[in-house]
């Protein structure tokens, strides 16, 4: 929707520096939450033996996703180029409907609010929301 300002980038980087130590827990919690609150997202994981939100597979996936988010922070100045390969993966192999990026982003924000209630101020919230939207857009780039 709107591009990231210098302030957004600064805010995201500063907040990420604070929270990245917990990135595995954040990712696992966000994916677990997504599977519970938006059960239609489970359709992408029918290959998991254990479809429950706190399974080892779900946790592993949460970790993978958050590593991607962390990587995106380092490529914040050119997400389209930086996430090109990840976009190809999502477009041609995973074929995740891009509407789900918004769903997962929402759950990441909810987890941030729970884990970092004082740091996740409205100013941080807006910049992080914009950032995740920009990441989602970059991920959808190669779709068509």
């Amino acid at each position, binding site marked *: 929707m709107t591009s990231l300002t210098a302030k957004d980038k600064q805010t995201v980087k500063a907040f990420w520096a604070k929270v990245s130590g917990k990135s595995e827990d954040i990712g696992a919690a966000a994916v677990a939450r997504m599977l519970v*609150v938006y059960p239609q997202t489970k359709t992408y994981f029918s290959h998991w033996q254990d479809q429950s939100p706190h399974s080892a597979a779900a946790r592993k996936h949460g970790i993978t996703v958050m590593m991607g988010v962390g990587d995106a922070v380092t490529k914040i100045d050119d997400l389209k180029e930086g996430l090109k390969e990840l976009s190809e993966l999502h477009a041609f192999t995973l074929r995740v409907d891009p509407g789900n990026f918004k769903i997962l982003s929402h759950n990441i924000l909810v987890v941030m609010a729970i884990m970092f209630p004082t740091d996740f101020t409205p100013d941080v919230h807006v910049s992080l929301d914009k950032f995740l939207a920009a990441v989602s857009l970059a991920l959808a780039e190669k779709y068509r």
Partner: protein
Amino acid sequence: MPENSVSADLQTESDKMVEWTDFERNTIQDIFSRIEYDVVGPAALARCLVVYPWTQRYFGGFGNLYNAAAIKGNPMVSKHGTTILNGLERAVKNMDDITNTYAELSVLHSEKLHVDPDNFKLLADCLTIVVAAQLGNEFTGEVQAAFQKFLAVVVSALGRQYR
């Protein structure tokens, strides 16, 4: 088309009744008995005005909304945030008839206030975030699902009388 919100879209047809499980009913009653309306309301509205700044269009008479600090400290924002939560309580007390409970409020928001109903979803998302921060780990995925379902019904009822 709300590009920003992911709160569930509920289709309401005139005879379709929303069904609540015991867990959902208890969860909603529990949340609203625990949160402080004059903390959560102001925080949610302020967050909405910051995160989705175009929503400020409805608050031209509220004075200084220049930045997050100003919004947070604005007494009119706080007062209105509390008003909103008190309004939500009406749905909490009438969970089986939210559509009718909000008929007049829906007309008000449409005919007098001229609020684009897509904005209701934005506020709902901010409310979810604020309640999550308040309840911490007790805001489990199951609780979140119940809360978001409740808010989706509220949002749908508020948009019902628009024409």
